[in-house]
């Protein structure tokens, strides 16, 4: 039976030849594109992984503490404050499982306290953590934040330096940059923040660094530079409200008022915090829409009321709002109360300005000079000092400080910058 075998053999040969041809020709002729994947959201991933793990292993106190810290970060990144409660619960759970020497849970509780403006509480948690583990960079980070906000400048710098000496990286660089900025060393602050940006891998971290770099550029009047930073940040993380607000600020400075108003409308729609609402109101007043401005301010009022009703204390927001709505006496009360709690430079400056608004310029001058003494290079602070000096008749000093304000950042506030210019003309003559 040869012939059937031939009938079989030929097709087999043909098939094999075809397959090999296909294999040879078919290979390596495809365009080699690397997979285009968006950078993954590490924070959301780590939260999901921790949640999964804790469902199967609920006694893992370390992961509970890590989850608590991650929730605090998530609240910061998404501006969703309900994560604070989850963070609290998770940290409590960790402490319940491991009450002694639980550094991670103490650090998480400290970070949470900072986020809730309980800076004294945060400082205490951080100190408790450091008593257990004197090498914890995270604990120094919490301590640095708390001391900075409380206004204890030397302690803050010391904590930041210790953090830098333990774990130089984005978190330490960012805090060091802020500390330098508060002391007026803006060039060093910018260099360090750039270092932080180079170390950033997560898109939210990149957005944060870009935002701070934008703010630093803005504060020295480099509007174009600020715009570049904000735009680059939005390319990394399009959801960042802070970056959108930065762009709106820059648009206002460049005179694109419609774009700025639209930007602020978007920002206050996403995150109606008193700070953003007041800025939006200022802009509305500038373009001659006082009724709309009042709407935003009353919304800010509601926001502050809610915050207080929920047990929060933010005298700074209350005072700023009172100033914006012309309630000078209330502003002084609120600012004094906040100053008693903490002496951060923003609080000092707000107190000075409130006193000025209430006509108590002599007292205001003391606080405004204190602000200037920190060395911070901020146009708004300089303008406030200049205005107070002008009100007290100290023309030379006023002229110097108003000039300083306008040379530092001529666009520092859409409402106040023109006023500063007018005042300068008046005292200049």
């Amino acid at each position, binding site marked *: 039976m040869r012939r059937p075998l031939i009938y079989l053999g030929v*097709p087999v040969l043909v098939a094999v030849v075809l397959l090999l041809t296909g294999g040879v020709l*078919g290979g390596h002729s495809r365009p080699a594109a690397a997979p285009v*994947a968006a950078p993954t959201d590490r924070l959301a991933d780590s939260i999901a992984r921790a949640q999964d793990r804790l469902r199967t292993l609920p006694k893992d106190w370390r992961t509970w503490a890590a989850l608590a810290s991650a929730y605090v970060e998530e609240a910061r990144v998404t501006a969703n*404050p309900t994560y604070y409660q989850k963070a609290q619960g998770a940290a409590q759970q960790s402490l319940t499982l491991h009450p002694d020497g639980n550094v991670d849970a103490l650090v998480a509780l400290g970070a949470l306290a900072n986020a809730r403006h309980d800076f004294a509480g945060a400082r205490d948690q951080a100190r408790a953590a450091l008593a257990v583990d004197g090498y914890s960079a995270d604990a120094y980070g919490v301590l640095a934040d708390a001391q900075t906000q409380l206004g204890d400048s030397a302690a803050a710098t010391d904590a930041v330096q210790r953090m830098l000496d333990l774990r130089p990286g984005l978190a330490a660089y960012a805090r060091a940059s802020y500390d330098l900025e508060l002391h007026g060393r803006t060039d060093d602050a910018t260099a360090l923040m750039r270092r932080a940006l180079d170390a950033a891998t997560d898109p939210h971290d990149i957005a944060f660094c870009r935002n701070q770099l934008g703010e630093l550029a803005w504060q020295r009047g480099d509007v174009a530079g600020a715009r570049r930073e904000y735009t680059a940040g939005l390319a990394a993380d399009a959801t960042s409200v802070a970056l959108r607000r930065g762009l709106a600020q820059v648009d206002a400075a460049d005179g694109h008022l419609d774009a700025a108003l639209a930007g602020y409308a978007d920002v206050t729609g996403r995150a109606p915090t008193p700070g953003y609402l007041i800025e939006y109101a200022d802009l509305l007043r500038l373009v001659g829409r006082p009724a709309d401005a009042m709407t935003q301010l009353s919304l800010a009022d509601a926001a502050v009321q809610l915050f207080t009703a929920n047990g929060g204390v933010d005298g700074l927001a209350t005072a700023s709002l009172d100033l914006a709505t012309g309630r000078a006496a209330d502003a002084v009360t609120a600012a004094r109360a906040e100053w008693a709690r903490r002496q951060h430079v923003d609080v000092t400056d707000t107190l000075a300005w409130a006193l000025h608004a209430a006509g108590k310029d002599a007292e205001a001058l003391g606080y405004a000079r204190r602000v200037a003494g920190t060395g911070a290079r901020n146009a708004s602070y300089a303008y406030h000092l200049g205005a107070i000096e002008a009100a007290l008749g100290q023309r030379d000093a006023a002229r110097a400080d108003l000039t300083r304000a306008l040379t530092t950042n001529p666009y520092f506030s859409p409402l106040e910058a023109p006023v500063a210019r007018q005042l300068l003309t008046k005292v200049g003559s």
Partner: protein
Amino acid sequence: MKFSSTSSRARRGLAVLATATVLGGVVYGLGPAAANASSHREAPLVAADPAIDNTDLYAFVSPDRPDYVTFIANWQPFEEPNGGPNFYPFATDAAYNIYVDNDGDGKPDATFRYTFQTIDKRGNDTFLYNKGPVNSIDDPNLLVRQTYTLESSFNGQPFKTRIKDAPVAPSRVGPASMPDYGKLRDQASITLPGGWKSYAGQADDPFFLDLRVFDLLYGGNLSEVGQDTLAGYNVNTIALQVPFKDVALKGDAKRNPNIGIWTTTDRGRVRMSGQPDASDNARRDRVQVSRLGNPLVNEVVVPAGLKDAFNSLSPDKDAGIPAVVQRVTDPEVPRLIESIYKVPAPAAPRNDLVEIFLTGITTKAGGPIKADLNSQLNNADVDASKFRPSEMLRLNLSVPVSKNPNRLGLLAGDQQGFPNGRRLTDDVVDIELQALEGAALTGKLVDALAAGDKVDANDNAFSDKFPYIALPNTAAVNAKAGKTGAAPAPAPSTTPAAFSNKDSTASTVGYISAGVGAAVVVMLGTAFLFVWWRRRTMVPADDTLPL
């Protein structure tokens, strides 16, 4: 953000919440629960910094090259093979160091420092890693490349540059982008003057273990093990091979064969105020951010509260931290094993563990293991008064290379194995578990733990030439983000998710020929059977039914 909980999860969640509420009810309301005034700056606290994370150190006498010792140090574990678009570069603001101490004082006598630079040609046009297939390490299609500089310093002398701008093997993007990664690997394995060999680049993670073993500490048990948690992941590797004489005390490996090795990452110190404070740590201009000697020390020995200290300190400081020494002498894991598995924990103080982890196995330090294996105290030219116990991996260069390496190393009589150095095939989890239960002292393995974590070998085979580690994996480990840490190896499925470069414009020639081939096979098969059956029916004839 994940799905809502199922009803059973909701019940469990409520139980947890109820507990937490009862406990937290008193302190609840300390702050604003739901408002967001946020008028102060909030910076990230737990920022991701994976590139500097030390994960493993191996040190062994080179099997294929007598008189040469190989160090392999790995960083950044859990690299997902589909890690685009930025993949896993080495950090450019850090230095990656391998240290050798040959006289036992805890200070480095030989230092090898790697620093990296990135050359990013992407500009604003693209964020792709490569714009075509990369066929060699300097292929212009590779848009993001790294190079490294290797410097070395011996006995406190200034650093000398050994090589500058050496190529780093890039992250393995995928089989279509890098069809011959082996060639890239070969091009990145360079030989330096003095016979040194060096490699920096990505590799398969050679460590194999089931991380769930450590869930013992959290109420887990050893019954659910057997999966290599690290299977399928990659790491960044630095491999260095140097002659004995460059690391041995006085250059004489015959008289002084024992060396201690550890690896660190450090960054430059940043001073805000310009003057260092008085502490010795502050005077140095590098800040150590990660450190590793023996494997799993953080998991097994150092408690949570000391991990930061351990990462920051150099080995010469270890003996001064009583908590570290105390932890070695009274470890937690054996007590847990005793409570769960009723295997009696050996009595504290565990000076046998002190020998293994802190001094090296020697008779000269008064330890209970009566053997002289790998301590610097056994070097002929050592000054014993300068010896300090310190945590590092200790290797005896004179122990001959085993012909049949045993994964249980020293405990199975294989003198070349961990804790005498560490080879790629040593099963350090099982060895350490046994050692914690006293096996090194008694010389007998503990039966109840004989299976260990039931992961005995790496998922990829090692090579027998430098740099010995397997090529990086290409198959995705997790189909989507959010999997648990103990991710199982990918299961085969009908959609080839593993081959991520599926391109719908695949070669039509390939398709056509494959289709024709398939049709021919089917036809062939039926023809074959038809012919065969016809032959059958012709022999023998009978009254069969027609089909």
